[in-house]
């Protein structure tokens, strides 16, 4: 069976405009053969979840430099629960300067992986390949 190309949505939720991290990751994932859709800046949780459904991605990666990661991720996770059909599962990753103390809270609400500017692109790629939901990989 040919391997399906993994499709990733990289999103910038909230008001923060620091974009460098998101762009570096986008380039890295593309170089690793993934298909990446970028939302651009200042997206609301509603817009992000709508894009993820419309683009039928396998992975949602959010990049958040400000302090609002918990508020924003809670909203995004709630919307996914409400709006995404039951058999579809996204792999959810978050990137940003997230204090280690807040990582368990993010995991608890359903975030699969948390990365920082010190994460190597190859580690992010490996994490996605290892954890992407099986429903996404079967043709």
């Amino acid at each position, binding site marked *: 069976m040919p391997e399906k190309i993994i499709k990733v949505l990289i999103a910038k939720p909230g*008001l923060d405009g620091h974009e460098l991290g998101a*762009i570096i990751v986008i380039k890295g994932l593309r170089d690793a053969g993934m298909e*990446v859709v970028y939302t*651009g800046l200042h997206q609301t949780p509603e817009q992000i979840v709508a894009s993820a459904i419309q683009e039928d991605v396998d992975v949602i990666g959010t990049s958040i430099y400000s302090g*609002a990661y918990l*508020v924003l991720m809670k909203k995004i996770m709630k919307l996914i629960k409400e709006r995404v059909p039951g058999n579809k599962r996204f792999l959810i990753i978050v990137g940003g*300067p997230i*204090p280690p103390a807040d990582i368990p809270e993010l995991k608890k609400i359903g975030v699969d992986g948390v990365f920082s500017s*010190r994460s190597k692109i190859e580690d992010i790629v490996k994490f996605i390949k290892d954890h992407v939901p099986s429903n996404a990989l079967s043709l």
Partner: protein
Amino acid sequence: MADELEKIKTEERRWEEENKIGVSPKSPKVHTDLGLEVKAVYTPADIQHVDYLRNIGFPGEYPFTRGPYPEMSRHKPWRYSVFTGFDTPEETNKRWKFLYEAGQPAFNIVYDLPSHMGLDPDDPMAEGEVGRVGIPICSVDDIETAFKDLPMGKYPFYGNMETLAAIIVAMYIAAGKKRGIAEADLPGSISNDPLSTAASKSTVVFPVKNSFRLACDLIEYACKNMPHFYPLQVKGVNISEGGCSIAQEAGFVLANACCYVDECLRRGVNIDDVAPKITAFFATTPHLFEEASKYRAFRRIWARLMKEKYGAKTNSAMAFKFTTIACPLWLQFEEPELNLVRATIMGLAQALGGAQATPHPGHDEVFAIPSERSQNLALGTQQILAEETNVTKTVDPLGGSYYVEWLTDQIEKKIIEVINAVEAHGGALTALESGYIKREIINYYTKINREIESGERVIVRRNKYRVKEEKDPREMLALHTPNEEAVRRYIEQVKKLKRERNNSRVESCLIRLKEAAKGKENLMPYLIESAEAYATLGEITKALKETFGEFKAPAIIPI
């Protein structure tokens, strides 16, 4: 003289051959980040083309390579400071008082994201963001609180605000009036550069051309009414944080500065009135000699541009003044105390480059809002540089160094190349809207990032000499934690203000503002009137959006 130089060149070739310089695998070629090949040593022959009086000259005189003022910091230190702003105006005021006691001769303010975007703290879109990366400023009430028990008007007020700068300055003017300080006596400066913001953090709020109009309204107003206020700091630091090269930083902000100058001239402002009002806010990387040379080159380009292109006649129009901060992108997570060392070296580059103001970062700033202790160390670092090291005893001490003069010339050429490329792409406004500038910056940083990841570019303790840590470095620092209770109380105060002020007065001010925005009038008087009526930043922004529309950041992914 010519014979002497020939002799030096011959001797240099002999020396290179004898020491196998640049020919053996043990002596590979060395380059700066701009791709300039750097020789093992520089001699008088490398600067033989330099006409001292024409290209270097004296400080305080054309072409201002050595500095904008004759004696620079010999008798009075440059204006060092730290940027402050967190939680609420009340909490920020406490820190300002601490810093005032510690000898900070300015009040520097950094705003939170809702303020940058024109959202009030009680706006649902602001949830979780209030006071997180800076101070929330919602109404004139907040400016008054921030300055409580502090000598407003005595020391300058620096605002790190982009598109909505005109509204913030209107509030500053309104707060000054309440204290009996006339706008003509208010000192300070504000970024007010939506153009560089459009190429970086995208807190542009309105479409670029309308954000630009508002910025020019403030510049024009300050030229006429605020002799002690600098209404534009072209913001190199924004694009430096976005990853640009030093030539891109200088070149792009110069291209931006020309847009503001052109518009002010179109409005009938004289070049000798507007040019002295323009300063820059740069970032300094740890590359000491390149940075000092960048500042020397920038001053020379500015002086020539003002004189030759714009016909400026006064020294103050041609003498460029700037603020600069150690570039946050070059501070590291690993062993964050080492950022104290990095920032000190960047601070030295700023001193040698002839900076007028140097807000200094906290070593913990890569993780959070700097703590009081870290800000105290940052201020102390600048105080040591300015008052303990003797680097200020003479002006431009690097001037005349064979290497630095050569490098200044080379960097000047690189900066001019960037300016010409922007021109070739339709000028700064077009190049911003087409995404050219953003793409150029990101392409450059992608290269740098690859070098860091591969270890080719050494970042100590990040990719070399790594000490195995058991703990996250954050656990070893007493980091700032947001005071959520104070923020909650503050949001209640904002709601109370909105209930209790004279709302029909607010409404009529906003109606007048909206009407004026449709025409071409300068909006400052309307903004000041609204600020005096306690209209909020969110309300004023919303009123302007009705006419101006909203900025949509292009989603650019470079190839």
